[in-house]
């Protein structure tokens, strides 16, 4: 029971981990990307469209499908879709100096609208009875467990039973953490987010760093959307099922104090909090809804504590949300 609860929490937490790792990379370059919910949504639908086309081209027969292509095609589609969204965001905010909050919110609206449009179109093509598309064959490749997972009891369940995108999320978070703190590129990126004028004077290409960080961050976030559809939802896409996971990912960035390593554990905690209502007996529907706000309550508590402690390392990048004009140095 406890093992099952933890596994469920991890499964729920992984999309958040992708989203917040991506957002951390972006925010470290000084850009508050509120388009993350839309970008994750686009990542998800791009993957769905990719695998839908591949499944159809194989005649809907799992025997004809190559496991490698079945995984790679949705993966690439999700990355490309999300990166394009990131490009729109960086072009507007870096090159045109548009307001970051407005741009981000607009992208969220655009992303969700685009996702719903494509989703509804696919449902229409399949002439399905239900308002959803099932890509269970592709999903079976995504959800493949590691060998021995079933044979090692609780250990196997806890550590080996997850889909590969879960391990990938943790690896990405660790790699991002390493790059940010232990490499020259990370130092340069952090300086761009803290004080772009200083970075510029030190000969760092501020615009390049902002673009690349935003696009890579978006690509990572897009994978979160894909993981949700393929692993959590077993390949079943229905419009708006993704819910408010994107916003939770942004809340997780604050909770994790802009540290990807903290975000790993934070995402599992958020997953557990989201899911706790299903494991507590005798809750009414209205109390269940109250439980769903726990991740946000925790985030607010963290915000209050860090604001009171005033430790500079726990604050957001100093120039977060500010456009950088070179002429003003």
């Amino acid at each position, binding site marked *: 029971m406890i093992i099952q609860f933890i596994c469920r929490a991890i499964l729920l937490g992984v999309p958040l981990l992708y989203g917040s790792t991506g957002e951390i990379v972006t925010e470290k370059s000084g850009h508050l990307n509120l388009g993350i919910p839309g970008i994750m949504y686009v990542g998800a639908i791009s993957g769905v469209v990719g695998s839908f086309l591949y499944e159809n081209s194989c005649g809907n027969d799992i025997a004809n499908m190559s496991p490698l292509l079945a995984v790679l095609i949705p993966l690439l589609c999700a990355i490309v879709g999300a990166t394009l969204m990131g490009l729109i965001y960086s072009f507007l905010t870096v090159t045109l100096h548009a307001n970051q909050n407005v741009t981000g919110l607009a992208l969220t609206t655009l992303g969700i609208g685009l996702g719903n449009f494509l989703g509804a179109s696919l449902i229409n093509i399949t002439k399905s009875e239900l308002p959803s598309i099932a890509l269970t064959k592709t999903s079976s490749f995504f959800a493949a467990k590691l060998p021995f997972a079933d044979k090692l009891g609780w250990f196997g369940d806890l550590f080996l039973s997850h889909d590969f995108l879960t391990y990938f999320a943790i690896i990405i978070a660790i790699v991002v953490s390493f790059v940010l703190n232990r490499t020259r590129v990370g130092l340069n990126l952090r300086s761009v987010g803290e004080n772009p004028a200083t970075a510029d004077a*030190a000969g760092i290409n501020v615009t390049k760093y902002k673009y690349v960080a935003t696009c890579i961050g978006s690509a990572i976030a897009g994978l979160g959307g894909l993981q949700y559809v393929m692993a959590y939802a077993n390949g079943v896409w229905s419009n708006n099922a993704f819910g408010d996971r994107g916003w939770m990912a942004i809340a997780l960035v604050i909770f994790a104090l802009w540290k990807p390593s903290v975000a790993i554990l934070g995402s599992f905690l958020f997953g557990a909090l989201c899911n706790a209502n299903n494991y507590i007996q005798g809750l009414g529907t209205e109390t269940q809804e109250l439980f769903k706000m726990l991740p946000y309550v925790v985030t607010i508590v963290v915000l209050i504590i860090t604001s009171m402690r005033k430790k500079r390392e726990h604050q957001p990048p100093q120039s977060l949300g500010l456009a950088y004009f070179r002429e003003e140095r």
Partner: protein
Amino acid sequence: MAKQPAIELKNITKVFGKVVANKDVNLTAYRGEILSILGENGSGKTTLMNMISGIYFPDEGQIFIDGQEAVITSPKDAFSYKIGMIHQHFKLVDVFSAAENIVLGLNEGKYNLNASAEKIKEISEQYGFELDPAKKIYTMSVSEKQTVEIIKVLYRGADILILDEPTAVLTPQETEKLFNILRRMRDDGKCIIIITHKLHEVLSLSDRVSVLRKGEYVGTVETAKTSEAELTEMMVGKKVSLNIDRSEPENVQDRLVIEDLECINREGVKILDDITFTARSGEILGIAGIAGSGQRELLEAIAGLQQVQYGEIIYNDPKTGEKEDLRNKTPMQIRELGVRLSFVPEDRLGMGLVGNMDIVDNMMLRSYRKGKSMFLERKAPKDLAMHIIDDLEVVTPGATTPVRRLSGGNVQKVLVGREIAASPTVLMAAYPVRGLDINSSYLIYNLLNEQKKKGVAVIFVGEDLDVLTELCDRIMVIGSGRITGIVDGRTTTKEEIGLLMTKSKQQGDDCNG
């Protein structure tokens, strides 16, 4: 040993729009010497040095480094010529450690902060710095931050160092320490250029002094063969007659009496100390001083915008004859008391006017509380706006044009016009003619003179000594937050004011007037 010229400037000219920042400047700095660049505010010292360090590119002229012509278009180019500039405003990332800041942007192979820290320690020992490479910038004092900046350029191998007013933020002890380090670097064969306007520092530190005045190169003298008087004369130049009207003060009464005023700024540094003076009605009191000597804080303290640590600001109300203490009152309280202070801040658009609002709305910033109904009274401000546009010849498409779109001179006219319209008894104006053309400047001078004739006590903070000596009845000089002298505007000379401006703290105790 014959000295090697490290850097030579030939006929350097730089123009910003219509303003000539540097004109035909020739300058040579040698290895193993400290060269001071001396000049008043706006004489083009920083612009000139920014051209050497790659922030600006000269419009005309050539730069030679070690005898070879050099083209410096970016800070990176400057580094490749081993030129390092320490700016007045530090370029550091607050949450990074000293070492992280020092290696930022470098590409020297493997990223290893421990190895960098070792190298930083070597440099520190060589020149006598004290610095912990792991210390975070935000926990550092100003002087430590400066140390980081200096080591940053040394770490990159710079052997021509340019320091832009390095002592402005330092205590006397820290200054002495810095000078010792600079002397060691000179003995090590480096070329040091230091921008300053403090005469005693020039004399104690540098080998040679080059003087700039209003963007032009005046000359270079050897420090050992010069004197404060000679340098001051080179700095301020010959008197230029401006023919500004100046009437005799009439009906003079003490309006503002300030005693022992002391203020501390946000960083906890004492910015005003022991300020005692009287502003009289029907008189223009000029305030002269190097920028940042406390002029702004003084005006803000009187206007109620700056916390006063100690001292008194007594206002003699001309209507009731009562004395009011303005100390630590909010601007609103000062108004409610019937004390009328009109304040023209240095930063026209930042504190005086709202750029995106039109002239009428900006007038309403002063009057919006006056109406009796729940709706805003728009008629009076609109009349006032039209009145100002007509009287002061403001060039604008109309009263509803956002102020931001007007030229600097017209913005200033709107601001001064509004402040004068409140019929003040004390009018304080900080740099009201900065950036204005000659005609607009005269218009402002005439406005101030009119106010003086009406019996207003005018306080005028200016930077052009010619204007100060022709417009003001008395001139108060501040240096480093202290009054270094109060002189009669009719009998004083530019040299006298120039000397008072650059006086060091210990000397500044004789106040007359």
